[in-house]
């Protein structure tokens, strides 16, 4: 199925090859025809945002903003006024938000048209999309495999051409890992760059909204509309938003990329190592200089994260008591039992596991040994990055250890599932922006690399990726789709 980039759609609309109503119908019918196979959407019967839709090719769009008529999908973690927002959970199965998340509002203002809400791991807790109450998502490259998680629905939708671009969130790798597993480009911006208002909270010091797209160029176009200071998010940062698309062609010659020896310690299997080496060669041809660096405390990233994230999760998810919204059981007479039953039935296994872990690390007698210790180690990891960025502009590493694994392969072993995020978690702990882009295939499955930048240097990640994508075509290779259960490659 032909995939159109946002850039291509903008040209098609301005050349009057298609109008915005036809475009919306095109994607809606693709979703109807193919999503039974992928399960990428939780809600797809969304009424188009008519303010920006025209069904007359010769008529100017009702409003001419930067993204007028561009369809997009949003992870079902973003509140959408009047449109059910489940966060992949039975707890919120019937929740209809009374307001829009700020990033949704920003895109609406620029004329973007929401196609639907994508599937995800429950409350964004997972790396394979298998914890969703609404069922697993299937990878368009091989439907027996995971698209990654937690933004698995967004990744699968973009990879399969069911949406030109999608929003995701990234708390420990939840945009970058699914982007790598589905052969697309995924950006997690700097912490505080995009508002968290109206984004269902998981771990508030780590959560960040971002983009899954077919190219760095599309990512830049969307990010400049989506990002920006929001007084409604107390951790949103008052920094001006660059016009990212104007940086795509910036001079990158002579930029220094650091290769952390801890990322290249021989633990990657050789086909993946070869792809990384080839992409480093492509970057060298673009004039990039490489230098070995060390991030000595990076090995502590996964244990640090699995203290900090569950601690914040146990606190954030305390709000789900079934009284004001969310799953509510009937005919229970004791208040404590009422809360406990609502939460037992409303939450899935992984969410409960994280709530219990978080409660443990915050409880009396363990706080210093676990939570405080983890916040100190988090500082060490942060200092490693600060030191590294004194001598390099960008850091490069793998996004994942392997390409997409099979559904069911790791579902019973939480620790092995947690190790999935080994390369991605450190940038969340330090609040750094990072991008994953495709660099080739291993046995028919896409694989990606990750670039990490200092705070607020998203434009360098986008220019490097864009210029790499101008000399390679990995990001343009499209999975062969079938409506049957045959495996694709």
């Amino acid at each position, binding site marked *: 199925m032909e995939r159109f980039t946002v850039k291509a759609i903008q040209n098609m609309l301005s050349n009057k090859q298609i109008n915005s109503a036809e475009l919306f119908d095109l994607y809606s019918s693709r979703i109807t025809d193919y999503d039974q196979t992928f399960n990428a959407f939780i809600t797809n019967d969304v009424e188009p945002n008519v303010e920006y839709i025209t069904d007359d090719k010769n008529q100017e769009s009702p409003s001419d903003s930067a993204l007028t008529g561009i369809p997009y999908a949003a992870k079902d973690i973003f509140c959408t006024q009047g449109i059910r927002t489940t966060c992949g959970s039975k707890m919120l199965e019937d*929740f*209809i938000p*009374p307001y829009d998340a700020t990033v949704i509002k920003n895109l609406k203002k620029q004329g973007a048209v929401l196609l639907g809400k994508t599937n995800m791991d429950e409350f964004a807790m997972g790396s394979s999309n298998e914890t969703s109450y609404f069922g697993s998502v299937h990878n368009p490259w091989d439907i027996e495999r995971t698209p990654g998680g937690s933004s698995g629905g967004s990744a699968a939708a973009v990879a399969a051409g069911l949406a030109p671009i999608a929003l995701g969130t990234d708390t420990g790798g939840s945009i970058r890992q699914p982007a790598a597993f589905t052969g697309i480009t995924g950006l997690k911006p*700097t*912490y*505080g760059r995009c508002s968290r208002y109206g984004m269902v909270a998981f771990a508030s*010091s*780590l959560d960040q909204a971002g983009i899954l797209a077919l190219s760095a160029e599309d990512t830049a176009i969307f990010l400049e509309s989506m990002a920006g200071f929001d007084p409604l998010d*107390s*951790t949103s*940062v008052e920094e001006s938003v660059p016009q990212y698309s104007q940086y795509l062609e910036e001079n990158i010659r002579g930029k220094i990329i650091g290769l952390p020896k801890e990322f290249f310690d021989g633990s990657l299997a050789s086909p993946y190592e070869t792809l990384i080496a080839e992409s480093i060669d492509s970057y060298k041809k673009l004039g990039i200089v490489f230098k070995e660096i060390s991030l000595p405390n990076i090995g*502590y990233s996964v*244990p*640090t994260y*699995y*203290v900090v994230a569950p601690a914040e999760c*146990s606190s954030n998810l*305390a709000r789900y008591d079934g*009284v*004001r*919204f*969310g799953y*509510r059981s009937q005919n*229970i*007479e*004791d*208040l404590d*039992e*009422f*809360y*406990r*039953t609502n*939460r*037992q039935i409303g*939450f899935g296994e992984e969410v409960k*596991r994280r*709530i*219990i*872990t*978080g*409660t*443990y*690390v915050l*409880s009396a007698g363990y706080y210093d*040994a*676990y939570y405080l*210790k*983890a*916040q*100190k*180690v*988090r*500082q*060490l990891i*942060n200092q490693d990055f600060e030191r590294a960025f004194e001598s390099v502009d960008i850091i490069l590493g793998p996004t994942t250890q392997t390409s997409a694994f099979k559904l069911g392969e790791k579902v019973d072993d*939480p*620790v092995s599932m*947690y190790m999935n995020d080994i390369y991605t978690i450190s940038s969340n702990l330090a*609040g750094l922006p990072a991008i994953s882009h495709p660099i080739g295939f291993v046995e028919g499955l896409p694989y990606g690399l990750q670039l990490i930048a200092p*705070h607020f240097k998203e434009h360098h990640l986008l220019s490097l990726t864009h210029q790499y994508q101008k000399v390679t075509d990995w990001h343009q290779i499209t999975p062969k789709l079938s409506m049957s259960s045959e495996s694709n490659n």
Partner: protein
Amino acid sequence: MAITKSDIEHLCGLSKLNLDDDEIPIYLQQMTDILEMIEQLQSADTDEIIPMAHPLDMHQRLREDTVIDTNDRDIYQKNSLNAEEGFYKVPKVIE
């Protein structure tokens, strides 16, 4: 220190969760594995390190305490299955 069945039950009480009896041994095993992984942190030298509370080292931004929201109670209460006359109904707490 190893985590026990009664720890899991205590934590469920603190976090207002029920687990079925047959789930407890599964959670116990998985929590043991998770805590063993987390235990690696103890080998990091963190003497004189200030804990990191915010990725950008920012302080909480404050605003003037002015009324900004309209009263949307009725809209918000549409998401509750047991709201009545502006109240939320819950099991009886006071005799």
